[in-house]
């Protein structure tokens, strides 16, 4: 599986560039080699393709004008936020325009009465959460890349995160969207209401559509009252499968905590080398459990989870002493993937999901598969919601190892599907998972998705080569 570099490089013609400059201003259209090189990739390894131009619009009107022009000229358009996605959703496989939404970076409204926020797509997830927190409110979706990722990007990929079990994922919080379709038409879907069944749920359809149906230009998000307190604990286990069994016990006992994250020994070691929190890496696995809410209830649930971990064979269990310690622990956990790169130069991260009771079983399969294909796979994940991130670390230029990793992952995807799971829990399809999509959805559904895409984007200019193409 060598680097997938697509031979694009077809420059946009002079007339198109001139019109783009007239729409957004000359300094916001870049097309020279040096300008566009960093836009050939996002955070996904192995996928690269240079765009013909990078355009930074500053308003919905500008986005609409760019799309109208692109549709008329048949130029591909790939919307992009911060480019932190992990499925090559923003790699311009067929060249054209990368449309960067980072200049649209204002929080327009935080309403404590209505418990909602309205913002532009270029606001980072962390900035929105901070703005909500300043009003005593919580924006629940908590992807690992929250400090980088933009709201537009997290909606377009339906980002998950560390709080999925108790709070759900991005789609559970999107109340309304403004989006520009492939025709240049502007639509406003949903609105400010929790209850609103007027027409098809296009808000949900656009959420997770990875820039293939429309360009999101404004987002209305549901907020919650911020929990009074939060706490986390640590449990070390002999193996990751043991930690998986503890997770099943916790949920079976009727506890739905905010956090249940597990990491195998390799991940713990990498995180420790980055964050230096004093984590022990001599155990086979680490489980981070945590909850939020009213202080006494949090303490009670932490206590019960600690007990269940001990009953399931934990080697050591402890509860974080104070909030800062707790937050440091989660911050370190969010860095697991990049920290793993200390083990090799290319980290191929995967994102399978299985029904919760089958986590321990899936972990066992991953270990078997890694051994059979002779690759190093470190696994971490959101154990509470069955979302696992087996990560293969190889060295740059070792094409043979890359090929083995590719085969191992094919087998891991099929195993997850056999257990009733999925090929991607929260990262998305992009180009990376497209080859497996038909296996997951069936031919009829893939065909239906194509027809849906054609309705939103008749010229086929939005993110071609990805889902729906």
């Amino acid at each position: 599986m060598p680097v997938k570099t697509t031979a694009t490089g077809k420059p946009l013609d002079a007339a198109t560039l001139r019109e783009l400059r007239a729409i957004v201003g000359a300094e916001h259209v870049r097309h020279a080699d040096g300008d566009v090189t960093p836009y050939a990739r996002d955070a996904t390894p192995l996928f690269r393709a240079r765009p013909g131009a990078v355009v930074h619009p500053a308003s919905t009107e500008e986005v609409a004008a760019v799309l109208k022009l692109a549709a008329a000229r048949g130029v591909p358009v790939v919307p992009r936020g911060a480019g932190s996605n992990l499925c090559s959703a923003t790699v311009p496989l067929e060249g054209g325009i990368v449309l960067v939404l980072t200049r649209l970076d204002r929080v327009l409204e935080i309403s404590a009465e209505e418990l909602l926020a309205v913002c532009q797509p270029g606001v980072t997830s962390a900035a929105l959460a901070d703005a909500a927190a300043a009003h005593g409110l919580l924006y629940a979706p908590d992807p690992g890349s929250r400090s980088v990722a933009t709201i537009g990007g997290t909606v377009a990929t339906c980002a998950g995160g560390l709080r999925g079990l108790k709070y759900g994922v991005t789609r559970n919080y999107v109340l309304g969207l403004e989006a520009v379709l492939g025709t240049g038409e502007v639509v406003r879907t949903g609105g400010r209401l929790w209850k609103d069944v007027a027409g098809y749920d296009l808000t949900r359809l656009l959420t997770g559509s990875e820039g293939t149906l429309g360009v999101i230009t404004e987002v209305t998000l549901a907020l919650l009252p911020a929990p009074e307190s939060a706490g986390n604990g640590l449990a070390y286990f002999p193996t990751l499968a043991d930690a998986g069994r503890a997770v099943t016990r916790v949920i079976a006992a009727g506890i739905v905590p905010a956090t249940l994250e597990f990491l195998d020994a390799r991940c713990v070691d990498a995180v420790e080398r980055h964050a230096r929190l004093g984590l022990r890496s001599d155990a086979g696995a680490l489980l981070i459990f945590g909850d939020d809410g009213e202080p006494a209830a949090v303490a009670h649930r932490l206590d019960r989870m600690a007990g269940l971990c001990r009953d399931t064979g934990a080697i050591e269990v402890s509860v974080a002493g104070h909030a800062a310690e707790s937050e440091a622990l989660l911050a370190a956990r969010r860095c697991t993937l990049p920290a793993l790169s200390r083990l090799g130069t290319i980290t191929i991260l995967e994102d399978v999901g299985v029904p919760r009771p089958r986590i321990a079983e899936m972990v066992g399969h991953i270990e078997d598969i890694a051994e059979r294909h002779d690759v190093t796979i470190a696994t971490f994940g959101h154990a509470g919601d069955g979302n696992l991130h087996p990560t293969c670390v190889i060295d740059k230029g070792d094409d043979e190892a890359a090929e083995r990793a590719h085969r191992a992952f094919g087998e891991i995807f099929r195993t997850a599907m056999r257990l009733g799971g999925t090929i991607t829990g929260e990262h998305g399809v992009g180009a990376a998972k497209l080859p497996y999509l038909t296996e997951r959805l069936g031919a009829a559904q893939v065909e239906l998705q194509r027809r849906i895409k054609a309705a939103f984007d008749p010229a086929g200019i939005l993110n071609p080569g990805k889902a729906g193409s």
Partner: protein
Amino acid sequence: MTGFTPDLLNRCIACGFCLPACPTYALTKDETSSPRGRIDLMRALDEGTLPLDDPRVREEASFCLGCRACETVCPAGVRYGDLLEEWRDQQWQGSGRPLVARLLMILVDARWRVRLLGLPRRHARTRGGPQGPSLMLGCFERALFPRVSRAARRLFPELAAPAAQGCCGALHAHNGDSARGRRMAEELGRRLPGTIVTTSGGCAAHLSSVLGRDRVKELSQYAYERDGLDGTAGEEPSRPATRTPPGGDPGEAADRPRIALQDSCHLRNGLGVWREPRAVLERIGTYVELPSAGACCGAAGTYALVRPRDSRRVLDAKLDEIEAAGVDYVAVVNPGCYRQLDQGLRRRRSRARAVHLAELLAGERPRRRER
């Protein structure tokens, strides 16, 4: 041809965690002006897909402040500062180097010229070779802010300050001549054989990278360890290193000055020294943490001279913060930051004054400006 160490370049996996830490990304929201984007440009140079004379490659090599804030948030442990030095070593050869940087480098390259710089001003100096720890006088600091070395000597009379010492070479290392920068640091290490105490965070980081960390102490670090604030000092210092301000009785707590700090980027991001200056300042005033205390002020070595407009754009948000915080002093631990904040605050006729931490510790309280 490639001047990049493969291991340094390969470390980046493009996760993008560096983007929110980068001041130039904050200004532009453009990936190409971010650490991750610049590493892509370096890779393209390395692979030969972009030439050194590509206009954007040239622009980004200079637009980067070199503050290394990206390193502290990088989970993969990319040594961006080292990569930038390697990049500029190639990019800023001969006429590729900004003219101002070239002139300054020539100026400090010979010891006699550095000494000449200090002649008109009365910086601290002692006779004879150093016995114990010595005070580094710096190149431009001795000319621009001679009072800083005098304050440091008043605080710590044990420090020798021979005038016959050169520049540490940080200027060279950051402006495309890292080999000469190393040699200058080694030379200074021979001239000042014991512990070298410096009032410049940037010099501390460069010297440490060449001579090793045990040889070099930035002034707040020295004060912190000497006064036992780190909890390790066994013996009491002969006298308190931090003097009570003139006319200050212990009863004047109500009138304690409000002091903020501007971290030195390389001290904080390169050496991880940020607790120390705060701890020593807390003892002499009410310490106020600015939201952007740890972010670059835009001085960034020669940056303020090479790119004055961008330098001011970076500074402006910080000046707003300082005004809003209502502080009396902004303590600095690096001469570049000193010049930058002093000029910025003067331009705004701000009530707050920029003062070196050594001056504050020595009990100096420059008068507040009247509005």
